[in-house]
């Protein structure tokens, strides 16, 4: 019978697995996000630095390519952890921009339009809602950070015999460092979007947390001549964590260059881990407070 002629009937068919039902959210979320051409173009551009890095690796190991490009000697830079650290730093910045764009688009419309009770009146918990929305960001950010980072590592390991096994720490650092950043960005992005609700303001607030936090941390350090105010500088904190993961403490890092650090003016690594963990925990607390079927005002 044609659909428009049918009367109401109860549903007696099969049900999907409850465990994986949260994946409905990323499926719809990703489809909607890529309906925006602007976002699609930006996302494609996020792979630009990876292509450049892959080209650099290829050129460093290919005499024919160097001859074609008239480069006299192979650079040693691509063989060092610094190369992967720099790539991760760049991709980490792009990941931040992507989060500021995407996170508010995921949560804010549900809250502005009062759709949350519809989600939560179904066999669907708040944790599953957050997990579903977070999966969108985790997927997008993974695809521009650790996934291409490991591809670069595999490319270099394939081109240079023995380099992969000698530098396995780089692969671990790319994977673990990316996930630390992805988790912090995802939780913070979702929490700010749930708190503020207006998409543009939420994007601005996320940028504010990073840039104002960085400005505050550096002012604190300059005025009081001690580093603890830099706990508010999340990009600095993740930089410290990455440096520890890459084993780069003996050298001046890009973060040190950027913020003109002298010896002894860095936070201890445990403080960086603790700062990022606190930011993530605060975000989870915000989400727990804001994502409710009904808001109760006391």
């Amino acid at each position, binding site marked *: 019978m044609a659909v428009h002629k049918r009367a109401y009937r109860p549903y007696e068919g099969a049900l999907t697995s409850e465990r994986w039902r949260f994946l*409905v959210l990323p499926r719809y979320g990703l489809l909607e996000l890529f309906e925006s051409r602007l976002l699609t173009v930006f996302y494609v551009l996020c792979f630009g630095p990876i292509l450049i890095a892959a080209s650099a690796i290829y050129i460093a190991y290919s005499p024919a390519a160097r001859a074609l490009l008239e480069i006299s000697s192979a650079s040693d830079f691509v063989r060092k952890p610094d190369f992967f650290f720099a790539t991760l730093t760049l991709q980490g910045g792009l990941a931040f921009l992507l989060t500021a764009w995407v996170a508010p688009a995921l949560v804010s419309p549900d809250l502005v339009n*009062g759709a949350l009770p519809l989600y939560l*009146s179904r066999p669907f918990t708040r944790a599953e809602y957050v997990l579903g929305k977070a999966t969108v960001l985790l997927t997008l950010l993974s695809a521009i950070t650790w996934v291409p980072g490991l591809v670069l590592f595999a490319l270099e390991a394939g081109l240079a015999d023995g380099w992969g096994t000698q530098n396995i720490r780089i692969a671990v650092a790319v994977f673990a460092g990316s996930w630390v950043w992805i988790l912090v960005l995802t939780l913070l992005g979702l929490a700010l979007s749930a708190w503020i609700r207006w998409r543009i303001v939420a994007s601005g607030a996320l940028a504010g947390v990073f840039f104002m936090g960085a400005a505050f941390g550096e002012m604190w350090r300059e005025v009081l001549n001690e580093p603890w105010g830099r706990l508010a500088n999340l990009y600095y904190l993740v930089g410290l964590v990455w440096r520890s993961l890459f084993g780069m403490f003996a050298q001046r890092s890009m973060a040190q260059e950027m913020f003109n650090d002298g010896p002894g003016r860095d936070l201890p690594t445990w403080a960086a881990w603790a700062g990022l963990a606190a930011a993530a925990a605060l975000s989870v607390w915000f989400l727990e407070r804001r994502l409710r079927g009904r808001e109760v005002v006391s």
Partner: protein
Amino acid sequence: MPPVIELDRLVVRLGGRTILDGLSGAVAGRAIGLLGPNGAGKSTLINTLLGFHPAASGAVRVFGADVRESKALRRLIGYMPENDAFISHMTGVRFVRYMAELAGLPSEAALERAHEAFFYVGMGEARYRKLGTYSLGMKQLAKLAQAIAHGPRLLLLDEPTNGLDPPARQRMIRLIREIRDAGQMHILISSHLLRDVEETCEEVVILKQGRIAAHCDLESERRSNRKFVELETVGAATSFTDAVQGLGAECAFYPNGHGIARVKVVLPDEVEMRELFRLAAEHDVQIRRMNYRRDSLEDIFLAAMKEEGGERGRP
């Protein structure tokens, strides 16, 4: 009939205030009205049924399962909230499909049922339009579509006719009646509009200040009050009223002059109404007008609002 909703000394506190104060009772009707003035706790009760608000003490059970302990129970519930609840940039059919998938339907089945639900609520032509472009009445119908698409056994409708113009309200009432008469699901309608509840419900729970002020079966109320009859007659005389009293009825006669009189009768349960017509014919009395005097829902509601504490009707 097993109870649909059971309340066991339910207390709900929000923001330091007691909103629901020891509600107890069970409802089993096909269409249940939840009435009460603003702030009586109607929406809080619905939110508690959905597990949005925790019980400070006591329990709520739906189809015998505690609402706080059974996530699967919510698959059996369809919810149409009072306020705007949609995703404005989605098309109607996509939104309903999305909601059906979240309720556990596979993607293809969810799509099919989303189309069906849209046609069922009479919005088939508008299903590919974005929800943000819908009128208020269309949004209400879209909310109803998402509430029924996954085939629930209990439909919670919170102020379903809110903000609707008269034709849209009639359409919504007709739909609710159709759903009720189809007999596939129970409906709980929260409303402050007595007429909506009277037109759609068989059973009514009236809340007042977080307590149950009245709980009655509208059908049996109507049946029990059908025996109060007021007649306007021409040519009636004491012989007629004597004959009526002979049926075992109580009868009062009020002549108005020119042969016109009002006759008030309380018929015993076993006497059918047609006996009055038979006696009128036998005594050559014209019955010009006949009114059943029955408690309207408004009477029941006003009585419940006047009563301080205690529960009217059955426990």
